[in-house]
């Protein structure tokens, strides 16, 4: 039978509920804090960042599991996400709690690796602790050993063959009238939205980007829409809202394998080389840094790089090929193709990131039809 609660009882119950919620919040806070604690109860805890989606996180999980099995005192938590969403949090953590980084080490793409240089985010690797770094091509060593390049994600052109009967052949097809209103890209992804490549093919470069902005401000209506992620880009092309997009070859091939109506071509000017790095974040303890270097050394081993290539279709940056025979016939993996890949000046791009984003909005997006 229902009974009316007295005010005093109600207040007492409210106070208990409040205390309960406070206790829960404390437990939650403690749990979250564990990931950031340097050590607790003799266990060294680290957080490793890796990209989510497709097979990208598989090697990170396998290597960390392997390492933990052989080092019972180490706990590695793998944090999956995208650089663009996690990096700002890493910077904030460095600002607010410099000795407790949100992420201790992990994977970073070229754009954010160089942004990290600008923001002074990375530790110097001691290559004595990373002997497998000797197998990495010199071009993918970093100034001051602030991380190391382990792979490139070649960027080419992805299109929907249902709508595109004559495949694109050149980067210039991105601004060719036959694809007017049918191009898409992640909005500020300079490796994919055509800005830098347009500048390079029209007499400019990263330090003289104006030819790229000029071309795109005049051809803004080439774009049907912008995406916020690679998956969203894929969906736009699969639906037929867009027909053409610059995309990582690895992603396009995996989606094609899964049955998506997509094709991938290498433009005649070559793929854009998008290097991928392994970095250690400033603020780690010497012991954590040593563990991170151990794990990075494992990732750079032939065994795990071959596994990475098999799973992702991305190209390892080793001096001698570790690509399994099943992939060697793919054009992306030919040394000639890798050798002629278009290289971007990522440091200049990182230094101009904020200005270019504003200019892209004002000079290109603002000129697109509504």
């Amino acid at each position, binding site marked *: 039978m229902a009974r009316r609660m007295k005010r005093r009882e109600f207040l007492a119950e409210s106070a208990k509920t409040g205390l309960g*919620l406070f206790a829960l919040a404390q437990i939650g806070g403690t749990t979250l804090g564990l990931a950031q604690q340097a050590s607790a109860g003799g266990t060294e805890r680290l957080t490793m960042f890796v990209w989510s989606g497709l097979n990208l996180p598989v090697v990170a999980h396998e290597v960390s599991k392997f390492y933990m099995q052989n080092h019972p005192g180490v706990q590695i938590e793998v944090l999956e996400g995208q650089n663009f969403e996690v990096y700002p949090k890493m910077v904030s953590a460095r600002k607010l709690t410099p000795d407790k980084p949100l992420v201790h080490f992990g994977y970073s793409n070229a754009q954010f690796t160089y942004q990290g240089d*600008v923001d002074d985010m990375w530790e110097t690797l001691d290559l004595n602790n990373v002997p497998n770094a000797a197998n990495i091509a010199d071009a993918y060593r970093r100034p001051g050993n602030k991380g190391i390049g382990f792979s490139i994600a070649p960027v080419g052109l992805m299109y929907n063959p249902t709508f595109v009967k004559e495949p694109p052949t050149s980067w210039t097809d991105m601004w060719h009238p036959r694809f007017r209103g049918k191009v898409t890209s992640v909005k*500020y992804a300079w490796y994919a939205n055509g800005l830098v490549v347009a500048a390079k093919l029209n007499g400019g470069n990263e330090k003289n980007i104006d030819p790229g902005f000029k071309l795109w401000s005049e051809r803004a209506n080439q774009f049907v*829409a912008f*995406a916020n992620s690679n998956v969203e880009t894929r969906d736009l092309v699969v639906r037929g809202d867009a027909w053409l997009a610059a995309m990582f070859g690895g992603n396009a091939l995996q989606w094609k394998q899964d049955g998506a109506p997509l094709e991938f071509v290498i433009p005649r000017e070559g793929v854009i080389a998008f290097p991928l790095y392994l970095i250690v974040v400033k603020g780690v303890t010497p012991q954590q840094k040593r563990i991170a270097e151990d794990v990075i050394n494992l990732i750079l081993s032939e065994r795990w790089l071959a596994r990475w290539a098999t799973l992702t279709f991305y190209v390892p940056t080793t001096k001698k090929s570790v690509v399994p025979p099943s992939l060697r016939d793919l054009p992306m993996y030919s040394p000639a193709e890798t050798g002629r890949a278009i290289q971007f000046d990522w440091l200049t791009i990182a230094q101009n990131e904020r200005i270019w984003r504003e200019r892209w909005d004002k000079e290109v997006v603002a000129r697109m039809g*509504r």
Partner: protein
Amino acid sequence: MARADVLPLPQRRAIWRVMARRYAHLPLLAPAVAVSVAVFWACMAVLVVMSVYPFLAAGTPRFTLDAWQRFLVDPFYWGVVGTTLRIGVVVTALSLLIGYPTAYAMSKIRRPGWALACYVVLFAPILVSVVVRTYGWLLLLSQTGAVNYVLRTLGLIGQPIPLIFNTTGIIIAMVHILLPFAVFPILSVVGQLTSDLKEAAMDLGANRWQTFRRVTLPLTLPGVVAAAQIVFTLTISAFVTPFLMGGGKVQILSGLIYRDMEAVNLAFASTVALILLALAMAILAASNVLVRRSYSRAEVLRT
């Protein structure tokens, strides 16, 4: 020696009792106030600090109003403010136009089963993620989507109509997503209306329109205002739906915040966030003042 200003014990006890009764509700407010202060106002304070002390890779952050100046003197950003407000106003107006008759009709349903069905149809979408609902609209309205397919099959159009990646798409999806937030406040007021006043108005010669305009609408105005305020504030601060439906082409304030958060341009992102908050608060305050004035004027006319 007893002081002259100290009251006798019984009187003091009486005052304590009165005070205790008067402020007994305050502990009930405490959790809401604590959450509001901790989560909202503390964050706002952090945003203010971040907007004037930008993060620097090296060295001590210094005070600067650069981000504020950049926003306030640039016509481009005022254009973005205009677009944001325009979408907010249109979505609010359409939500009210659709929501008011819906709420009115729902209040008239007497059969519990029908009423329940209406509630389910109207409010069930809230249970689904906004991303899923927006993707649903993308599939329906895209060039190869169901709407364009039907229109082309019927021969009504030759070429697909661009219904997404523009302001139209944003407005359609936002109205659908926010309609329950418009209906519910109106429904709660309309449901309390009795027929006495309407009958009196009609007895005095008012037709249906005059009865609605002079009696029903003023009585339900608090619900309409509440609905408008909720829909408007949710619209101007929305990000996912405008980005997906606008295809990143329609530039709004929340998009600017996202852009600069990604680029770790925290000072500018914080500035835009605070301007968005100030706009919402100013418009809510203005609408409250206008409603109060209209009620005052109505009181004057009645006397």
